[in-house]
């Protein structure tokens, strides 16, 4: 493969991934509003388009045409830099997410993953937690007490749950004997088992850490509306205000759900019967069924997150950190201990 072809393929991948993520991220606002509405027995947006299908466009136009207000006592450079620092790392996580099996397009074997580095999982967690800088800076730069308190809370949560999420993910990594996202999925396919069956504790811990990292209920203390009036975004307006929830609630949830799918749900593999094999009701799609399965799994996880969000009340900040250090971390360590005994029994 020549270097030009490689460059073109990488460029196409970047464009496709960015377009999909930002486009879907915008439309997930509609999904969230619909789910929330129906849980509360409302129909949600109904006016713009059929059942409100054009509502995200209307929202986007509204946010873009709003007046751009800069707080006079804010630090203007950091105030704007914070948005970039929130958006970029969250989208960078998708660089190591494998969306499907290797496909054969125009004479090239293309892996649907931007960079198949051999430490992909660590990259994902590193980028995922880099997003805390956007939050912390936005809180400090807006020079508002609400924003600062929200940012400090978010930073505290990220520090706690970054440890938890890494230790939880060590279980599947030990079973797969690899740090590469692509290889972890391949290991699950070869061993004919999704790691959720072998790692239920770690799965639950990971889901909770996902909720905490993305600021979802029951861990959304950093933007507790009742006390902090949405926390660190309080001084932002227009599209700048719109970008923070877009990043935090949608792009990050999508990225961490993808990582969760890769680690525990066998990535693009079809329905699994443990240690027996895979059943694929979508066999007629040929090699493309993998992509569909990946999308289905991420969608289910996203809906689960929404379902939890609109059901539960929120914890206090001290309860959140207590859960992280006194419950989640010991559970994850215990899980690693058990996994160390299970791992040699699985054939590689």
């Amino acid at each position, binding site marked *: 493969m020549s270097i030009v072809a490689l460059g073109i393929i990488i460029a196409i991948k970047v464009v496709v991934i960015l377009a999909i993520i930002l486009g879907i991220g915008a439309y997930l606002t509609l999904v969230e509003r619909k789910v929330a509405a129906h849980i509360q027995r409302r129909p949600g947006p109904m006016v713009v388009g059929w059942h409100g299908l054009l509502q995200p466009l209307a929202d986007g136009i509204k946010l873009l045409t709003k007046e751009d207000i800069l707080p006079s*006592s804010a*630090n203007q450079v*950091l105030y704007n*830099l914070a948005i970039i620092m929130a958006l970029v790392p969250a989208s960078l996580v998708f660089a190591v997410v494998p969306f499907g099996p290797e496909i054969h397009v125009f004479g090239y074997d293309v892996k649907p993953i931007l960079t198949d*580095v*051999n*430490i992909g999982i*660590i*990259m994902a*967690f*590193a*980028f995922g*937690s*880099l997003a*805390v*800088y956007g939050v*912390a*800076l936005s*809180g*400090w730069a807006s*020079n508002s007490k609400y924003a*600062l308190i929200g*940012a*400090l809370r978010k*930073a*505290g949560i*990220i*520090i706690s749950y*970054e440890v938890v999420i*890494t230790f939880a993910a060590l279980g599947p990594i030990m079973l797969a004997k*690899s*740090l*590469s996202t692509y290889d972890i999925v391949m290991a699950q396919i070869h061993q004919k088992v999704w790691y959720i069956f072998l790692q239920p504790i770690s799965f639950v811990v990971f889901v909770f850490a996902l909720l905490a990292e993305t600021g979802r209920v029951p861990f959304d203390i950093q933007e507790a509306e009742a006390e902090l009036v949405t926390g660190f975004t309080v001084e932002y307006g227009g599209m700048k205000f719109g970008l923070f929830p877009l990043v935090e609630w949608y792009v990050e949830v999508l990225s961490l759900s993808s990582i969760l799918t890769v680690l525990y749900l066998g990535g693009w593999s079809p329905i699994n019967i443990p240690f027996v094999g895979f059943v694929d009701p979508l066999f007629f799609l040929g090699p493309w069924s993998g992509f569909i399965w990946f999308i289905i799994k991420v969608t289910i996880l996203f809906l689960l997150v929404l379902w939890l969000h609109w059901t539960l009340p929120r914890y206090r900040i001290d309860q959140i950190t207590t859960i992280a250090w006194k419950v989640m971390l010991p559970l994850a360590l215990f899980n690693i201990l058990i996994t160390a005994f299970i791992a040699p029994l699985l054939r590689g």
Partner: protein
Amino acid sequence: MLNQIAFYLFGSISIICGLGVVSASNPIYVVLWLLGALIAISGIFFSAGAELLGALQLMVYVVAIAVFYILIITAVPWRKLHKNEQHNRLIGVTVLPFIALLYVEAFIVGISGVSITKNKIIETITKNYGNAEVIGIKLFSTYFWAFELMSVLLLISMIGAILLGRKEEKTYD
């Protein structure tokens, strides 16, 4: 060729960011420059093929440690930042010869050239297995004693930190 370009790019970024660290007066800017320098250094690791080191650099230094800086600095009130405080120039002047010595050492080492293992063993292992295995093998064979000692040290310090941070229950007998 591409590697060299990447190396010079990240190297120059890290040097510029390092200059920013020592010249900026606002502590938040200092931390941001430091962040840039650390990310650029992890970029150097990536371009050199040491992906695990680069990722750990990102995770440990960029996220975990620099977040603590941010946490502490965001608690600094705004009006204190507008004062032009004197840096500790005396300490800086005192430390300068030692830092210069460090650079001289690095220069000598760079010219004479060192290698951890002979016969390019590491490169072959990296190609065959990957970064994590190399580091694992090195840690658990050559540097096993140091590794274990360090683990025990960290454990002791962690227990110490917990003991110090624990609230003493006051008992008056």
